[in-house]
């Protein structure tokens, strides 16, 4: 096992919109403050000297694209002005939708196999308050928020991260079948899957029956896009459920068939934060 989840945090973002904030720019200023605070908190798990080693902070998203695509907001607006950030956001990746975090990790760890730490944030906030994103037949009710992960790379093996794409357009069953193959014979592995409503979840129920997995939290959180598998780990972590070291396969699938997995180890020394909704 080579990827260790050193620290992770999630902040639900339920009420920050362009109208509640007065403007789109103000809404993003608020989001960037949350990003700053969450990143700072997650980085407290390592010493200031080691923080300097962190070369990248990927920001991934599924659905926050339109303000950027139209040019209303720039990537640089994601970093708070006037505050020194230990590891500011360096690279915004959203084309792979919910699997963007896995593609970012695959790229970075291939480039930098000797890196000790890598930081990823996953931001999905309905700042335009569009009904398409509030709920959808493809995933039921949505949940919005910001998730930040600090991963310690003990000795990276290529198979620790999978980032690929379904061949068919029947993506969820194909994804479940792939996960089934990955988990076969791995009694030590617990799956952390994306959150879906019952009608979609039954694909996992049928195809992944018998494999250890964290419970689906769609009823509590809705579908939180790429954050789902990490939010589930965080929820268990803040409850103190990781008494023994546990190997978890975090899995995400995107609407267009992109998928990713990361095998990570968590234990009692991993730190988790679950904030009140903003």
């Amino acid at each position, binding site marked *: 096992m080579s990827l260790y989840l050193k620290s992770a945090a999630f902040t639900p973002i339920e009420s920050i919109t362009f109208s509640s904030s007065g403007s789109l720019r103000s809404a993003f200023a608020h989001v960037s403050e949350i990003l700053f605070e969450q990143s700072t908190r997650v980085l407290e798990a390592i010493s200031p000297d080691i923080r300097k080693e962190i070369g990248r902070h990927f920001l991934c998203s599924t659905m926050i*694209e339109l303000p950027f695509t139209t040019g209303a907001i720039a990537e640089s607006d994601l970093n708070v002005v006037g505050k020194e950030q230990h590891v500011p956001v360096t690279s915004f*990746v959203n084309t792979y939708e919910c699997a963007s975090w896995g593609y970012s990790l695959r790229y970075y760890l291939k480039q930098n196999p000797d890196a000790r730490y890598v930081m990823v944030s996953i931001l999905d906030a309905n700042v335009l308050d*569009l009904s398409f994103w509030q709920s959808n037949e493809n995933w039921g009710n949505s949940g919005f928020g910001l998730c930040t992960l600090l991963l310690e790379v003990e000795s990276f093996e290529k198979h620790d991260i999978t980032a690929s794409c379904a061949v068919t357009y029947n993506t969820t069953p194909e994804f479940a079948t792939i996960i089934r193959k990955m988990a076969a014979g791995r009694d030590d592995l617990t799956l952390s899957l994306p959150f879906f409503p019952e009608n979609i979840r039954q694909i996992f129920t049928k195809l992944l029956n018998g494999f250890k997995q964290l419970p689906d939290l769609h009823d509590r959180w809705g579908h939180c896009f790429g954050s789902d598998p990490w939010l589930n780990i965080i929820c268990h972590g803040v409850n103190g459920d990781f008494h023994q070291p546990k190997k978890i396969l975090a899995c995400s699938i995107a609407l267009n068939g992109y998928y990713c997995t990361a095998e990570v180890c968590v234990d009692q020394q991993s730190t988790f934060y679950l904030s009140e909704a903003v």
Partner: protein
Amino acid sequence: MSKLIEITATLVRNPYPDLPKLCAARTLPLHREEDFEAISILPVNSNPMMLNFAEHYLLIVELLGCIKSFEARIDTCLLRIQMPAGGRMPKEFLDEKVLMLQDVRAEEAFLQREGKPYIAIEDTLPRHPLEAGNNKIQIRIACEQDPSDLHWNLVEGISTKLKAVGFDAVETTVKDRTA
């Protein structure tokens, strides 16, 4: 001395005039009055739309094919791709040598500092009025050493391709790579 070769060009016509076009707006469905109000606060691009989503991806696939055909030893390719994407990306974009970003510049700066070879394709080809962009393309080839004949053949190949698919003002500049 390691160099950065930059090819710039402007798209002045549809790249595939003989290709049948699929009419597809590919925007998010807007249901409520509030959805329309929200979209209305976003800037709208008044530049001409020269191509649709499928043609844009075909263009980039062809450029990647052109780069691959010259067998330049470049392990990293950065693509600027805007979302929403209008469907599943071509498999060439999902290759492990490729990373698609909202903005390639910051990632490129890391590769520059590390002295790594790469290719960055940064286009601002709008496919929809809700996309910023002025129909320009910049292709940067970062070499570890002085450009070889292979690199110059690659530049020639890309420039020829760009002209063939409707780009004008195709120019090449060479700079020292800054650390």
